């Protein structure tokens, strides 16, 4: 059993968990909720996007550029698998 290292990073795990409860969320929402710097969040989002876990939607809200993120099916499956693995590791630790 191998834990998904992309998801296992604390900030990325939280990003994935936030998006798991929603249809989509924009960059501002994630920055304020996670209290990360914009650059740091950007780096995490790029990693998740390149792994195929996120879908990025770029649009304009009036004159302001807006970037929204959505969890893909692959991301959703990976997150479910991650929790299964973590729970299995914790069960092993208990016994």
């Amino acid at each position, binding site marked *: 059993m191998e834990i998904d290292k992309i998801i296992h*990073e604390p900030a990325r795990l*939280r990003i994935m968990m*936030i998006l798991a*409860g929603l249809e989509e969320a924009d960059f*501002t929402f994630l920055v304020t909720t996670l*209290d990360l710097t914009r650059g740091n969040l950007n780096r995490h989002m790029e990693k998740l996007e390149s792994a195929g876990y996120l879908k990025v939607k770029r649009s304009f809200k009036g004159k302001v550029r807006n970037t929204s993120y959505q969890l893909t099916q692959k991301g959703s499956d990976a997150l479910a698998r991650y*929790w299964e693995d973590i729970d299995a590791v914790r069960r092993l630790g208990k016994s």
Partner: protein
Amino acid sequence: MRSKQNNKSQNQGMEKLKEIPKWTRRYTQNRTLTILALMVMLGLFSMCIAALVGFLLALAFAGFRKGNIILGCVGIAVLAAVLAAIVKFCIFMYAKFGGKNKGLLDQIIDHRIYSREGTASMPIPEATKKKKWLEITVTIVWGTLFLGTMYLGMVNYIPVKYVQPISALYCVPYMVLGWYFWRSPRTGPIFLLNPTLYAIHAILILAGVPIFFKSSFGAVLNMSLPMLGYGYLTFIIGHLYSRYALKKLKGLTHLEGDTANGD
């Protein structure tokens, strides 16, 4: 011993992380200030139209009744111009925010109110043609019953005291089903507070509590005030709950300095 305690607290921390989607949903579903703002705007717009049309009609009638034909004609002409302006405004609003742009106005207001917090959205309920037509039909039936009950109350066919309890018979199911079929999961179960309060209001009246108006406008006030008042109250409570949910969410998602910036 210490490592056992560490493991236990780590496990608890991981378990808490599983609550993130729940609090994210609760926060998003209760960003109700947008609906409240829309309701206030619609209420003010309706009141302005009612006041303007009522005033002009009264002016025209008074003119004709007193034999002042010029005043009557001016009243009718201005009323026609006002009605034409209202129709033009409605067409403009539909062109800008209706049809393909449905939901754009909500988005703009939402962005204004919550711009500092960013945007998060729940899935929109699937809109099939059948569902849409059912919604329109049910709303027309509800609107007819609502206005009908109000009218029957105004002409004293239904005692003013019983106007609200009778309206609760169809308003409560309409609001509950409306939430279940067309609003959930976009709006959370807090929306059900509105029909619940409306039903409690009706039960209290039937139990003899004097929470109704007896004046000539009693029928209108007894129905519209609880409907609007409980609606506003529900959305204010929803907004306050969203603040609590956001606080909980931030408590779960904030990382300590080094962990936050690590990779």
